[in-house]
């Protein structure tokens, strides 16, 4: 079974903090993704990575950066957290057609 693991289920951070969300996959997948899910907006792509140290911006990259130093690990960084970044963050990986998701991190910025 494919396993995508996100380091935290719930996080509460203060405005202006630097926040790291970690994701690890165990299936040697080339591609990894970060999405955010908001009510009425579905899943929106923040960044994706198709290889180690390779990344591409998704649809809403502003305020975020990513790091992929190892194939199995993809990190999302909120440089200076703001309240409008309160959301459910979902990491995914894939090799072919379907993407496999982690359990999500519910981030609240206060």
């Amino acid at each position, binding site marked *: 079974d494919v396993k995508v693991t996100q380091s935290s289920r719930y996080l509460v951070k203060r405005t202006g903090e630097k926040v790291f969300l970690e994701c690890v996959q165990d299936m040697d997948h080339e591609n990894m*993704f970060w999405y955010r899910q908001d009510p009425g907006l*579905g*899943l*929106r792509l923040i960044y*994706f990575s198709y290889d180690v140290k390779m990344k591409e911006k*998704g649809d809403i990259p502003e305020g975020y950066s990513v790091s992929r130093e190892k194939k199995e690990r993809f990190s999302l960084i909120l440089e200076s957290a703001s309240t409008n970044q309160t959301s459910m963050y979902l990491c995914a990986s894939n090799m072919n057609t*379907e993407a496999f998701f982690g359990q*999500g991190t*519910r981030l609240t910025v206060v």
Partner: protein
Amino acid sequence: DQQVKQNSPSLSVQEGRISILNCDYTNSMFDYFLWYKKYPAEGPTFLISISSIKDKNEDGRFTVFLNKSAKHLSLHIVPSQPGDSAVYFCAAKISGTYKYIFGTGTRLKVLA
């Protein structure tokens, strides 16, 4: 501009009956369409997919239909069960990439 649309935010169905979830798309550059199921506080789980060259794919109680001329796909769940109550997202994969465009989701409630 929403390229993948799920126009029904919610749907209620009696247990044992058919659930039909719909999705429309505007871009012809998609090569695969997928359906995901999501429970609260969990990540989406892959359900079923269909290639753009097919018009039907079936897996147990789940069948996906693709109507390319109408740019429409639907997910049929027969028979519906209370455990099927969740939010369902349709997604489209852009040809030649690994990028997915997701719809906004439909909340299905199966009534016992």
